[in-house]
């Protein structure tokens, strides 16, 4: 049975380019569904019912952030429980745009201007569980976890001003939202521009262990962000 992939991208040229990347990346049979806006993407995914596994779900979803009828992050937030690998494709490489997307549950990101081969490799890595983590985002993550989930304004080196407020103002972080010392160390090295291999050398561990730490950090970010969203929602009487 073919692996179902959803590509949400409004630019048709970019969409077909991404289709080629996806087909190139996997040897399995691929069934690609394309969507040009949030509306049709939601139609393709079908109704989401809490507590029930969707039938024949998409295994991989590529989401563009800038869409004609909204922002891809909205969809990512809705799909937080959806059992697919969700990847943000964007032209923005700065942490101000990427970090909120990661908080919304993205498992990784692809930069659209990268060369075909680079994109293929990156995509394969993400699906294998080796998501990228740029120094700027690592720095942002450090701040996020140090402040107990409050990723307040990032001064100085941030890119575009983010218009999206990040939920904040909670008390002491819970265990699952706190980084282990090793994870903090990995993040610190990443924020200084070290590669995974270099970090493995510096810490005296295997490179895939470093990778596990990175995955775990991603997970904690998603969990803490979801918890934040829940707290925020209950405060506003939505839940």
């Amino acid at each position, binding site marked *: 049975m073919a692996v179902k992939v959803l590509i949400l991208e409004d630019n048709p040229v*970019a969409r077909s380019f991404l289709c080629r990347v996806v087909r190139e990346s996997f040897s399995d049979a691929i069934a690609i569904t394309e969507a040009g806006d949030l509306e049709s993407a939601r139609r393709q995914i079908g109704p989401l019912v809490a507590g029930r596994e969707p039938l024949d779900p998409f295994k991989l979803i590529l989401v563009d952030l800038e869409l004609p009828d909204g922002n891809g992050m909205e969809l990512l937030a809705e799909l937080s429980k959806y059992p697919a690998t969700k990847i943000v494709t964007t032209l923005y490489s700065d942490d101000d745009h990427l970090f909120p997307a990661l908080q919304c549950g993205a498992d990784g990101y692809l930069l659209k201007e990268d*060369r075909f081969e680079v994109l293929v490799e990156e995509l394969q890595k993400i699906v294998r569980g080796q998501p990228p983590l740029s120094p*700027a985002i690592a720095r942002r993550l450090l701040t996020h976890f140090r402040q107990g989930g409050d990723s307040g304004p990032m001064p100085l*080196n941030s890119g575009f001003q983010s218009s999206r407020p990040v939920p904040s103002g909670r008390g002491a972080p819970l265990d699952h939202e706190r980084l282990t010392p090793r994870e903090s160390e990995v993040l610190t090295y990443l924020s200084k521009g070290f*590669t995974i291999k270099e970090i493995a050398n510096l810490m005296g561990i295997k490179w895939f262990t470093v990778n596990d730490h990175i995955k775990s950090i991603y997970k904690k970010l998603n969990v803490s962000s979801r918890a934040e969203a829940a707290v925020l929602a209950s405060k506003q009487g939505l839940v």
Partner: protein
Amino acid sequence: MSDPASPARRTRPRGGANGPLSTLFPIDSTVESSFGERAVPPSDAMSRWMGWRLRLLVVAALLGCLGLFLLAREMASQPRVDASWRATAENRIELARATDPALGPLVGQQLLAVQADGRLLELRDALTLRPSARWVIGDEQRREHRRLHEELGKALSEPAVQFVFAGGRSAFVQTAPRGFVGLGIAYWLLCALALVLYLVGMVVLMAKPNGRNLLYATLTSLQAGNLVCIAIETTADLALPWPFVATNLSLRAGFDLFSAAAIVHAAALHPRRLPGAPAIAATAWLVAAAITALVSFESLPHGWWWVQGGVLVYGLSMVAMMGWAYRIEPHPFATVLRRFGLVTLATWMLLTASLAAAVAHPGVHQNIASVGSTVWYVFFASLLMLVPFLSRSQQILREFSMLAAVSTVATSLDLLFVAVFSLGPFASLTLALFLSLAVYSGARQWVLNQLLGNSMLTTERMFEQLYRIAREVEAHPERSPVLLSELLRDLFEPMEVTVVQRRVSATRVSSDGSTLIVPVPALGAESAPTQGSIVLRFARRGRRLFNFEDARLTARVVEQLRRAVAFDRAVEQGRSEERARIAQDLHDDIGARLLTLMYKAQSPEMEEYVRHTLQDLKTLTRGLAAANHRLSHAAAEWKADLTQRLTAAHVALDWSFDSDADVLLTVVQWSALTRVLRELVSNAIAHSRATRVEVSLALRKDRFELHVHDNGEGRNPRAWAHGLGLGGVRKRVKQLGGEVEWRELSPRGIGCRVIIREFSSRT
């Protein structure tokens, strides 16, 4: 002050600065609130007045008014002959004006004697026309003056008096009570001034009853007494009303000497207690009492000189004591009082000298004695009233005292001219008036500056400072107390500037004007808490008092600073919002099109070219949107970026980064370096077929160095065409104020070196 170890407390002088003479001001702590501290919007001082002090004050005021009323009633009931007399050039008495029909025809005639109740009183000269024995210089003359006044006073209080004129003419005149109207305007004005002076003393005393304020109240009461005496003297025609004759001399001399003693006593206590203050005070009072007693009983030869000299000596010691106090602690109050003292003493000496000089001209002497001395006392009274309000610096009081000083000088000059140069009265008056007006207009500002030390930073310098500080506060909000202290230091040149934790609600002057307390405004971000207060002590190196206007000026300066900062911030925010919007638009519109173009590229070269353009666009927009980049952060991103690109091209990266200061890169530096680095590495990938690229960045002692070495097959860099993007590298390095050079490496490869000296001063 909550923190006993705070600097303001440490440097506070021990107890010396308490409000004495001035008195409205206490002193416990530089910041402690008390009655004397005046906030810029004056606080509701009245509420603290309620209670026994207010009642006592009302009682004192009522007593004063009652006393004056009884005196006026007594004066009004004294019988008199309604006529005025003047001295002739021959030192005889001449009838100047009369309303009585019997005297009317005799105007201009010389008076020879007065007869009443059967006794004949001969008048050989015009001595009796001197209103007070206080200003009769010779001992003999004074005794004669007193005898004449006693007898004339008695004679004139008979129901009828006969005046005998030269040429055998005489007139019988009925005496009549003077009546309130007959007291004259001068009488009422002087009494009013005396009452005001007395009340000021009482207000000061009631505001804070203590020894020093009691001294001030004593001093004002004594001078009020002097003014009342002068008021009584203005009503004298031929002689003082007889109930006042006996006491006049003792009272006047006593008032003068005791006032001087009180001043010396006060000077020993304020602005700081001098060593041996009790001994000084006791000596002063005893000597004053002794001289007064001896002069009253006419048992001291040259009594007049003793009194004048005694006052002069007291004044000189007061000035000396102020100098002494200033050396112990440079309290500006001492300086101001010393200046006041010198001015007062100078006029006193002038008055004494002109009286002594005019002794041969009885007419002139009489003028000086009545007009000159009155002016001097009014001047002194106004100075006294000014003292408690020095730091309030009421413009009107200041001008008033200036005017009083000038008119004293003018009058004395006038009389001196008449006495010494024998000018006619009119000519000398005109001359003196012109001279003193010229002096007044020319020296007014100078004198004001000297008296209160009013020199200020020039306006331009202040504005320049204000805006410079506004910009610095913008960059370092946490330094605003320091920066503001600097501005105020330039403004007032105080001896001490300290920042204390305690917060005051408004700018205020305290401790007699020696201290100015300024709350530090919230200049930083809106939410930043304000940080305590700045305490300035001893303006102009201790030569000047802070006054109410200084507090207002400071409040305005602070407000201007706050506005300038807020304005700068608003402008900066507007600019960054605008830049962010432009960046967003560029990125969204042009970026999307370039992306499409890149996907549709016909050849790999074209695709690579568009990719470069797209990356440049991203660097550009990111530089637009962000203000500053920390060097370490930028280096991390450069490394990650290069690693990714070189890995994709199967080239190894050897990276090193080393800096002794994590500086903030400006947008220009960041984007230029980003693009230089990218360009150099792209060249290594695209043209040299290198397998290894070595990048090293170093910032040492403000010298930035970048090396990019490859092991490719490039050779002879001088011969390279400029199409390789090297022109762009040159241009950007030049823009940063640095230099770039390429050279061949052995055994193979090309090395590029970029050096930027004085990195942080380039923008």
